[in-house]
Structure formats: structure tokens, C-alpha cells
């Protein structure tokens, strides 16, 4: 399979990781998508030299994305943009709803909890839990030892222990006609 096809196959998963890492939300994010775009292009440009394929390519993409994200954070490039995206997210709500305090949905709680984690813990948790990497692979992506990775996982899990349970697919409640009664 050509490198371009490999990269395009990886794109959805990279998007998922980038969005979870940056916004904690599954919704499209301009910053996250730009980050993925940059990583794919850089890998495409250097791919013929590096001769990456299969699992190595996969690990390379996640390593690059994680590093690039850290660089953007260090350069202070994320703050303003992320804030603007958050404002835009809330700006779409009806005015009355915006004026009143909105109880956070389970999804908002997950996003807030993820973003409250230290970056290193969030990276470790998302690579293992969301992206399904083994401990050895995640440690390689983060350039840390397996022991440190597990410590970060443990810290993340301790912090997230109060998260709500996953949303069950909502099923409309049965409406019983008022004239019917259960007769035993």
C-alpha cells in the first residue's frame, strides 16, 4: 500500500486523538485538524526518506503529533485559539440558554475532566485507552519507560474516577395510555 494511502487511513484516528488531546471533545476542532494536517504533510514529505510503513508509520505519526502539540503549547499558540473555539461552541446556543447557567452534559464533564489532567497524564491515558496502544508502544511514543507510563496512567485514573458512566443509547420511554392499568 502506498504511503499516501497509509496516511489517509490513519487520518481519522489521528483526528480522534488530536481532538481528545486538545479540546477533550469529539466535535471538529480547527486547531486539532490543523495539527493533524501538519503531521500528515510532514510525514508525507519525509516519508520516502524515512521509508516508514505499517506499525512504524503509525507510531511515528502519533509521536510527531504529540511532539508538535507540545511545541504549539510551549509557543503559546493554543491558548487564544482554544478559547475562541470554546466561545464559538457556546455561542451557537440560544440566547436564553446562554444567559442561564447550563448544567454540564456528561460529554462536557468528560471534556472538562480530560482537560484538567496534566498533559503527560492525558497523553498516556488517551494513547492507551482511546487509541489502544500497548504499554510498550505508548511508552515509545512518549519516549518514557513503561513504569513511568503506568504511573501516569494511575494518576489519570485516580483523577477521573468520578466521571459519569457512558451514555446509553436513549430509548423513548413507553407511554402507557392513561386509561390502561396493570391488573394483577
Amino acid at each position, binding site marked *: 500500500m502506498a504511503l*499516501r*494511502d497509509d*496516511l*489517509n*487511513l490513519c*487520518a*481519522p*484516528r489521528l*483526528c*480522534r486523538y488530536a*481532538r*481528545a488531546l486538545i479540546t477533550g471533545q*469529539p466535535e*471538529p476542532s*480547527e486547531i486539532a*485538524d*490543523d495539527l*493533524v*494536517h*501538519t503531521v*500528515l*504533510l510532514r510525514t*508525507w514529505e519525509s516519508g520516502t526518506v524515512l521509508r516508514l510503513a505499517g506499525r512504524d508509520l503509525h507510531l511515528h505519526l502519533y509521536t510527531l503529533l504529540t511532539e508538535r502539540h507540545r511545541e504549539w503549547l510551549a*509557543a*503559546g*499558540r493554543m*491558548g*487564544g*485559539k482554544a478559547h*475562541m473555539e470554546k466561545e464559538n461552541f457556546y455561542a451557537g446556543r440560544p440566547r436564553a440558554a446562554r444567559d442561564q447557567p447550563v448544567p454540564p452534559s456528561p*460529554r462536557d464533564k*468528560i471534556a472538562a475532566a*480530560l482537560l484538567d489532567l496534566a498533559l503527560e497524564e492525558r497523553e498516556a*491515558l*488517551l494513547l*492507551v*485507552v*482511546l487509541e489502544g496502544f*500497548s*504499554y510498550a508502544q505508548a511508552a515509545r511514543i512518549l519516549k518514557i519507560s513503561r*513504569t513511568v507510563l*503506568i504511573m501516569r*496512567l*494511575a494518576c489519570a*485514573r485516580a483523577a*477521573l*474516577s468520578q*466521571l*459519569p*458512566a*457512558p*451514555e446509553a443509547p436513549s430509548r423513548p420511554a413507553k407511554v402507557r395510555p392513561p386509561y390502561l392499568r396493570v391488573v394483577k
Partner: protein
Amino acid sequence: MRGRGPPVSEAELHGFVDGDMGHGRREAVQAFLAASPEDAARVKTWQRLNETIRAAFASVETEPLPWSLPVAPGPEGMAATGHTVGGGAEASGNYSWRARWFAVGLSFASGALLAAGAAYLADRVSTPEAGPPSSESPPLARMNFVTRARSALRAFEPPSAAVRLSSDREQRAQDSAALILPNLPMEGLKLAGIRALPGEQGQMSCLIYARPDEANIALCVEKADDSDETVPRVSGNFPSAAIYWRQRGADYALVGALPEAGLRSLAAEVHAQVEAFDAR
């Protein structure tokens, strides 16, 4: 933590939850958890947490990608996410990737000429050096760019009045990073003129293309305030939408009354030409 055999470590409990266990240890961990309700409850919480996180992001993998994320967008690249590009693949025909690059190559010669023209244009008009890179690129600024690109198309008069350049040679500046203005490789398009308008980062240059019996199309470019690239995005609604992106230190916008597939296909071609351009 003791079960049967060697003691069960905290790391093994995490490994149990994440499916990352040493050989033969699963039974030992299970036995340990059966004997320790407190640890079993912790492990249950972690498993629920894993499910919660996976469920929260399950939709991303199956939803349409931003249309330009596939690498080297073109007929094949778009086909990979055909559902996201509104049929761009059909609009581009079924020719192969190699054929596409051949087509790009053919159009590249004229694109290179235009790029040289753009360099001359940038040299003739005053192009102040961009300030220090901003720490962020407000989307608002990019939207202004798109709005100006639209107005460039709207205000375009017959080609004879198209090019109005400043003759102020004293403000001429050597611009090593000349803007790349590729040729629009669409059948029936004819370059009608070039507009130079004041931009936020110096001068915005627009190539205006005429189509027989149809509305014009404009490809506008101006220097970006930073060198980071962005994915192409759509502004407005088709068929009067614009597609804009940042590439190789410049903001590009493609504006014109084209159906979605046509405009996306054209933008992909422009993107590929700019990417392939080598000024050396």
C-alpha cells in the same frame, strides 16, 4: 497484594484493565480480585472509565473527515473520503493519480509564468515586511481575507481595467518569498486579468478567470502572518462559497459560482500545484 503465585502489583491491575498482561498472570489477577472486593471495585471503575472515554469519541472515526485532510488531495485522495467531498471525485473524472500529476505538470508551466508575474507584481507594489509572527492567527483576519477575495471578484471590470499597479518604485522591496499563484487547470477558463488590492499583510493579488457565459472565478493570495499551514475550509454556501487555506506562508482563497464538487476539485488542484512548486 497476594494471590496465587507471585504478588499482584498495581501495574498488573492496570495491565489487566488495558489488556496488557504478562503470560499466565491473568488467572492470578482474577484470583486476587476475587479475594479483594476493594481492588475489584477499583478495577471495575477503571474499566468503566475506559468505556466512557471510548464511547465519547466513538463517532470521530466514522464521521466525515475535514475534506482536505487526506494527503495530496486529488481524485484518489478525495475518493478516500468521497463522502466528505461532495462528489469531488466524480467531478474530477476517473483518471489516475499519475495522469493527474501529468495534468498538473502541463499546467505548471503556465503556473510558473504566473508565479514569476506575481513576483514581479509583488516587487512593483509596496510590500512592507510582515511584522513578527503573531502568536495566534485570528480566524477573523482570515475571514476578512475571504471577504476581500469576494469583493475582488465582484468588483472586477473587463480585463482592460484589471491591472492597476502602483508606480512607486521607491517602495519596491526585495521579496525573497514571492507568492505562488498557480494556474487554474479547468477547461474553459481564461485568465481575464490580475487585480492587486491592499491586504492585511501587504498586497493581495487575485487572478481573475473568465468562463464563457458564466460568472468569473478568482484565485486570491496574500502573505500570511505566520508560516503554519491550515487545512482548506469552506466559507459561505455553495454555489457561491469560497474555499480558503494557508499554504507555504500565504493565504489562498478560491471564489466563484461553482458547484461544490467543482470548486473543491479546483482548490485541490491549486493546492497540489503550490505544494509541487519549486522556485529554484
